[in-house]
């Protein structure tokens, strides 16, 4: 990592952590840990370390959207259906109170057991799921509710009906809708941020990743199968992709990293939820009071500037 990039990273982590994560006493310790992480980032992370994050991001006990919802929001009311054809259980949506004010929440939802996994389609949404998302975004916009999205999907579902019902267009329209919102938006990748299915609900003012979340244009296995012609090269692909949070921060794709308990979010879901809540709340506070037009302008400028070219 170049020292410029490191400085930038240090600066961002400081902004993220210094002010906002020091609220609870437990958070101070986390902050220190985050600092130590920062130190380590000087050296390139090893393939093995990145792969550990991939495994943690997909851990069978990793908390899912609804695990956080029940710990973070009060009075949560789930909203169902796209008002067209289906209620897609791979995406949950609703409104609830966060620190006393109403927000709208959207998130991919995987399943814990086989039955739930089937119901949730392993967190892989149909176009109807993204249409439900758009509907709830419109509701949030109309009522001035800040929008929080939790991203955790291997990708949008690749199926015949999904294609027939317009998967590509639905994902495109969900992004376009997020560009239009006049309310503050915060997205957090809490597990797998898989490709178009992830970005569909992650076009936010602030995009964060949990410490062990991954965010990528294609799954490491998919990439390896194509580029290395060998799916078992997934570790190499993961590393080449820099799909971990630190690298995404370095690339300017996300604004911050949400710490997890040592060993991963699944070791202490309550603590993970506390950190998540603090991060979201602090970013929403920063965005508070910004006029709708300014929110949109800054959001668009941010995404407009992404890419590396000469």
């Amino acid at each position, binding site marked *: 990592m170049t020292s410029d990039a490191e400085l930038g990273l240090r600066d961002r982590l400081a902004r993220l952590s210094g002010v906002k994560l020091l609220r609870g006493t437990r958070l101070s310790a986390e902050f220190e840990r985050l600092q130590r992480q920062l130190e380590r980032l000087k050296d390139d992370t090893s393939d093995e370390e990145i792969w550990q994050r991939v495994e943690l991001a997909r851990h069978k006990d990793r908390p899912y959207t609804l695990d956080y919802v029940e710990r973070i929001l009060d009075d949560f009311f789930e909203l169902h259906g796209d008002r067209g054809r289906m209620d897609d259980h791979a995406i949950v949506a609703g409104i609830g109170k966060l620190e006393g004010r109403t927000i709208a929440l959207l998130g991919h939802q995987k399943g814990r057991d086989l039955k739930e996994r089937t119901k949730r389609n392993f967190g892989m949404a149909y176009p109807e799921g993204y249409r439900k998302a758009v509907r709830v975004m419109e509701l949030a916009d109309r009522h001035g509710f800040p929008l929080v999205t939790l991203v955790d999907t291997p990708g949008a579902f690749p199926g015949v009906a999904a294609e027939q019902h317009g998967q590509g267009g639905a994902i495109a329209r969900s992004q376009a809708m997020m560009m239009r919102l006049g309310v503050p938006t915060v997205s957090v990748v809490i597990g797998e941020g898989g490709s178009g299915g992830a970005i569909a609900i992650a076009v936010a003012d602030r995009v964060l990743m949990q410490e062990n979340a991954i965010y990528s244009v294609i799954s490491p296995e998919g990439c390896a199968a194509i580029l290395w012609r060998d799916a078992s090269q997934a570790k190499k692909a993961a590393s080449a*992709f820099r799909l971990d949070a630190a690298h995404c921060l370095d690339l300017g794709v996300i604004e911050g990293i949400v710490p997890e308990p040592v060993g991963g979010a699944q070791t202490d879901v309550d603590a993970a939820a506390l950190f998540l809540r603090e991060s979201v709340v602090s970013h929403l506070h920063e965005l508070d009071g910004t006029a709708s037009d300014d929110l949109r302008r800054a959001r668009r400028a941010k995404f407009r500037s992404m890419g590396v070219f000469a």
Partner: protein
Amino acid sequence: MVEMSATDKVDVSIEHKQVTLDDGTVKKHPNTCPGCGSHYRDDELQASLRVCPQCEYHFPVRGLERIEQLADPGSFAEDESALRSGDPLEFFDLRPYTERLAEAEESTGLGDAMITGSALIEALPCRLAVMDFSFMGGSMGSVVGEKFARACDHAAADRLPLVSVSSSGGARMQEGILALMQLPKTICALEELHASGGVMISVLAHPTTGGLLASFASLGDVLVAEPGALMSFAGPRVVAQTTREKLPDDFGLAESNLRFGHIDRIVPRQELRPVLAQLIRLFRRTA
């Protein structure tokens, strides 16, 4: 996001369900139409806009040739041609990304997979953003994203309609997460064009898949596709592997997309130029 972006060697027809006449055993004449098996002469095919005179099979068209087909002779002025991709991930699979880029540039004569500029179509001024599948499978990385975004900016500033012609396997894997970010980036630029009252006419050529279909290509004010063009978010092979379903014969093709309500019209290549002129006339801002 879609495997076709991986290499510039991909045969366009492999994802094309209607074109499976090749039985794999007979050695074919090099100029054999995959639609009907008839032979063609290169100059004749070019004169017929690369549409088979026998069966109407639409062969792929390179970016500059597409512009020649659509724009009034001599009217096209390319811009942003100096843009070149960086290598933010220092990506290396079996070969370095930089090497793949250099090779693609040499073999195609293009700086990246999209050509943009101003042109006249039937004497009507417009902006063009045309993709070339030959450049790394038409994959969308930072340069394609930036070129499309600038095309939107120019169209808005000049109050001209923007015509895009997409042909792409999706996001460019070698740019990792930054390739994914070209989806919101291009959508964002198109939103600004729309907010300025502008129009984007999206022509979907074979194939328009993955990140292209999940971004600007789906968001035109009018969507027209070429006959037989594959338009799917996930490619047929991925869908078949994932779901173990037998795919419908016209899976993901323009014809299926028309039936399911995703495009406005299928326009044979011979009609594309007049249809675009018609649309430009309809959307032209008089004030």
